[in-house]
């Protein structure tokens, strides 16, 4: 009798794993890769201006005074268009937003900003995704909260929706 019972164990285990696999297949896959640089200082960088009208961006622009947003974006990125009004709303709340344009051309940047508004205080041009890789960002758009000491405090992946704005404002307040 005891032996009979133990004979069922492998089958039960198999059924458990098959069930688990079937369940996991139906679950939404987390396809974002989060940065593991949260709590770390911003790496050293100095990027040239992305277009004529605004200065470029460097690590030094993030130190002193108040926390800021670092927005990774590109003129060729469709969700960045959807995000533009929310960046404007954040700017209206007094938030300084420093942009980094990924793999972009000056004329395209200028065109995008004239069409969808310019919420940035400065925009650095990262033509080979160098700074993007250095801060652990894996796509556009992404937004980082950087505190006054230059520490990376929070990462928002994907475009900022209207209901993400309060969360970002709270994270900026926390980084104060």
């Amino acid at each position, binding site marked *: 009798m005891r032996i009979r019972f133990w004979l069922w164990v492998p089958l039960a285990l198999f059924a458990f794993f098959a069930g688990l696999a079937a369940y996991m297949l139906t679950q939404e896959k987390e396809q974002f890769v989060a*940065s*593991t640089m949260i709590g770390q200082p911003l790496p050293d960088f100095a990027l040239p201006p992305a277009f004529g009208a605004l200065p470029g961006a460097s690590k030094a622009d993030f130190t002193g005074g108040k926390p800021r947003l670092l927005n990774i974006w590109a003129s060729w990125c469709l969700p960045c268009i959807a995000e533009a009004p929310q960046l404007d709303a954040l700017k209206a709340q007094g938030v300084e937003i420093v942009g980094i344009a990924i793999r972009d051309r000056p004329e395209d940047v200028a065109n995008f900003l004239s069409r969808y508004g310019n919420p940035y205080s400065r925009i650095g041009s990262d033509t080979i995704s160098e700074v993007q890789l250095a801060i652990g960002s894996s796509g556009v758009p992404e937004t980082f909260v950087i505190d006054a000491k230059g520490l990376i405090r929070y990462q928002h992946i994907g475009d900022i929706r209207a209901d993400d704005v309060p969360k970002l404002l709270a994270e900026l307040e926390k980084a104060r």
Partner: protein
Amino acid sequence: MIRWLFAGLLALIALPLSMPGLAQDTMPPAPYAYNQLDDPRLEAEASTLMHSLRCLKCQSQSIADSDAPMAGDMRHQVRSRILAGESPDQIRRWLIARYGDYVSYEPEVSSTTWPLFAVPVLVILIVAGVLLRRLGKRRGDDAGEAA
């Protein structure tokens, strides 16, 4: 009428196909994205490393296999860092510090992955224990019968 329907159908098919094209940049690839290093020894080092790094945009490909612009930029990082004298291990650790174990196709032992390595060893030990006990017993019985 049928012609219009057909044209509409074609447009419906073509629209989603053309969408990803819109979300691509028009910049030329980074210098070392598609150009090999001059020194074949260094290029071999870079190539081995690139095959073991995951593309962040196209997550089931290595950066060596992917044509995504970001994979090209990652290859540029790998090659230019190798050229600057960094070791493949240093570069891998630099990327893992930014993206976690995820970026590595070679499983790393860490606080989340250690069971992957521990469980097989444990199973082998248990099986070895059971086998030894059973075989040992049987040999003992054989010895008993022979006597």
